[in-house]
């Protein structure tokens, strides 16, 4: 896949690449089906098919009946479309002794995600604001520790967090998990907010100071209204991140309050019973649906959110 790509680029006439509309030569009409274009779009198309295939396979499999899956191939579209696997995945699939489907995990994930997202964004935005506009002595030391903390493997901190949560009386509870998500989301979110607030013109901040606004006044009346896009970016980042979490869900919650990803894994990878691949795939799509909707609805903001991790502080 990689080889033809380089080959194609190697043969390209450099003139054809970056045509500047204001350039001295003006726009030169080009054939649509040039060799370069066929190669370029051909390669992109093939790669796009590879990336799209698993989603297609998931959807197609989830709409087939088990007899059809056993006979046909996984890439063929369903002959007889059935929504039974979806119904079963949502309300009847079994994990251990519970047979009330993924709906339980879905609602658990909702009640984990919502407070975690809200709390982590509030705390991180205030932190970022304090770091960007009200730097105090030692602030950078803590910030550096925080950023390095983002690179510490979670495995190192798993057990200390267990102890911390137990001391706080939150181990195994919803709020314990919320706290864990808030803490581990803090480095990247604080970085995100700090960088954004630093880019807001200083004059605004100074003018507000002259007018007598204090720490919270400036934050709530000037900074927050001016930074709605970055709050949306942070929300996208947190909703997908927390929804997709597996490790913290396994470690810090009880089986009855397992988030959707954990329950999904337990359903699909359970060793007892006949494997129902259509139900498994329906359950997998259901779990992936929330981040997918967020992704397709947010477009470029999602890209900005994930690229925030690469921004150097």
């Amino acid at each position, binding site marked *: 896949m990689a080889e033809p790509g380089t080959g194609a680029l190697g043969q390209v006439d450099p003139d054809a690449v970056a045509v500047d509309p204001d350039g001295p030569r003006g726009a030169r009409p080009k054939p649509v089906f040039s060799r370069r274009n066929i190669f370029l779009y051909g390669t992109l198309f093939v790669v796009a098919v590879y990336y799209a295939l698993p989603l297609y396979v998931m959807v197609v499999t989830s709409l087939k009946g088990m007899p059809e899956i056993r006979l046909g191939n996984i890439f063929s579209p369903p002959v007889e479309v059935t929504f039974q696997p979806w119904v079963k995945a949502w309300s009847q699939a079994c994990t251990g002794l519970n047979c009330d489907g993924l709906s339980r995990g879905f609602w658990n994930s909702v009640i984990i995600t919502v407070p975690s997202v809200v709390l982590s964004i509030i705390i991180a935005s205030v932190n970022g604001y304090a770091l960007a506009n009200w730097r105090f*002595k030692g602030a950078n030391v803590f910030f550096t520790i925080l950023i390095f903390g983002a690179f510490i493997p979670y495995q190192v901190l798993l*057990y200390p967090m267990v102890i911390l949560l137990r001391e706080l009386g939150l181990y195994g509870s919803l709020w314990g998990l919320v706290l864990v998500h808030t803490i581990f989301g803090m480095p990247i979110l604080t970085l995100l907010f700090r960088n954004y607030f630093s880019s807001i013109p200083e004059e605004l901040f100074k003018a507000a100071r002259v007018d007598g606004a204090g720490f919270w006044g400036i934050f709530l009346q000037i900074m927050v209204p001016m930074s709605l896009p970055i709050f949306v970016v942070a929300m996208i980042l947190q909703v997908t991140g927390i929804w997709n979490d597996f490790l913290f869900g396994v470690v810090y919650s009880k089986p009855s309050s397992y988030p959707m990803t954990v329950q999904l894994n337990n359903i699909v990878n359970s060793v007892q019973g006949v494997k129902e*691949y259509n139900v498994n795939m329906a359950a997998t799509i259901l779990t992936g649906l929330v981040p*997918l909707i967020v992704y397709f609805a947010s477009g470029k903001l999602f890209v900005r959110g994930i690229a925030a991790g690469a921004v150097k502080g």
Partner: protein
Amino acid sequence: MSAATAAPRSGSPSARPRRGPFRNLSAKIAAIPMILTALVVFAGGTLWTIFYSFTGSRMLPKETFVGLDQYERLWNSNKWLIAIENLAIFGVCSLVFSLVIGFLLAALLDQKIRFEDVFRTIFLYPFALSFIVTGLVWQWILNPEYGIEGVVRAMGWSSFTFDPLYDADIVIYGLLIAGLWQGTGFVMCLMLAGLRGIDDDVWKASRVDGIPMWKTYLFIVIPMMRPVFITTLVIIAAGIIKVYDLVVALTSGGPGIASQVPAMYVYTNMFQAQNLGQGLAASTMMLLSVLIVLIPWAYLEFGGRRRG
């Protein structure tokens, strides 16, 4: 994005002459969660783990010091050695392939093509999915009976064999396929941002000089994108060391213990085998490997800036 990278301003109220612990009090109060997280969780937690990795803790942490026993047992454990070997293969392959593929895709998308947004959306959507979802989908596609192997055999090539999830020798490449599918879109996005940050004049100059495009990429653009490559490298590497969910969903560490990874070894010892000290020693080794990646980077990044 470039605007967002601005350094915090230094002319803020911190420059005022007022001194003492109560100066800037609101900011200090507001920063308490950050300070607690940094000190108690990140610094404190790390020290706690390192400290107790030298004890013989079984089910609960105990202060019975055993020196380096846990580490000795760790490096004599076959399971751990397999986990380390897997991580090394998976890590090197992931790094190389995701950087190469990510860069090539970004370069293709950077040719002022039509439908760029459509292509980018398709390449990136797997990154929105969790490792669990990724693992389960690929488990199904790589299913020897119904998946790719079954389909190719049904087409008449009856000796065709491709069952990475059930073959201990190549199971790690099954993980690689799934991992790359999930993560290359992200690398592509970072690379694309890097390519867009290259001044158009560079391209104009190389065109005027008649330098072929691939040479411009190889000898001018890529060296100019060094910071992007390094940052991407560090981010991917830190992610690879943590890899856990993907293995759980795709293979559960099997067949046998063939696809064990360090994160899984830690989890099993800490929460299932009641062998806490061993789990802590393994996680300390994970931390060490992150530091090996991180320290040279931090040195280049921050040490360099100070000198510059």
